């Protein structure tokens, strides 16, 4: 059982790096601030949480306490920061400047114009 821990740690570290790389590529690739925010908000849960799980798997009490504190703090604060960025973007830019395929009030722009 304890011989399995280094291999599980390797898999978790490489998966976290893969998710961080995908999130950074998404920030480059997406055309809009809202969709970029969607890509960038994945880094906390899928990129940092596996690394914290690796630290928990080491079994040292000084590591585990700090890792749990950091995990709770990051999972609480990342949605608040993302919501603050999205709210600043929505309040300062006119909604006409949102890209065409970003949904406005739950409806994509083309469906909204087709109904009206």
């Amino acid at each position: 059982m304890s011989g399995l821990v280094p291999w599980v740690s390797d898999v978790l570290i490489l998966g976290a790096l893969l998710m961080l790389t995908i999130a950074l590529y998404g920030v480059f690739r997406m055309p809009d601030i809202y969709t970029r925010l969607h890509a960038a908000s994945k880094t906390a849960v899928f990129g940092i949480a596996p690394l914290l799980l690796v630290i928990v798997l080491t079994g040292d009490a000084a590591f585990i306490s700090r890792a749990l504190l950091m995990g709770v703090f990051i999972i609480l604060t990342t949605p608040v920061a993302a919501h603050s960025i999205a709210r600043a973007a929505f309040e300062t830019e006119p909604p006409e400047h949102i890209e065409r395929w970003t949904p406005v009030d739950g409806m994509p722009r083309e469906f909204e114009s087709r109904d009206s």
Partner: protein
Amino acid sequence: MPHAIVLSIAIIWMAILLAISLILVIAGPSLLEQILAFDMATMMILGGLLLLALARDSSFDLDAGLMLALFSFGGTMAATRYYRKGTIFS
């Protein structure tokens, strides 16, 4: 503990990701995207600190990461409030 070779590759790869996100901080199209890229660069530094704590087997790097997460959240909130209202405290 993960293997040493995986840890070395992971630290180098995290440094590359940090460099790319710092380029994005400088070259973001608008100011909000620069704020977003700065938040993301802090996440990369945080991941690098976690890997460094594993590599050096010292728990003091985790304290630095905790403080970095705290100040990153405060900085993002202050920057977006200043962008939205013109003042931080209203």
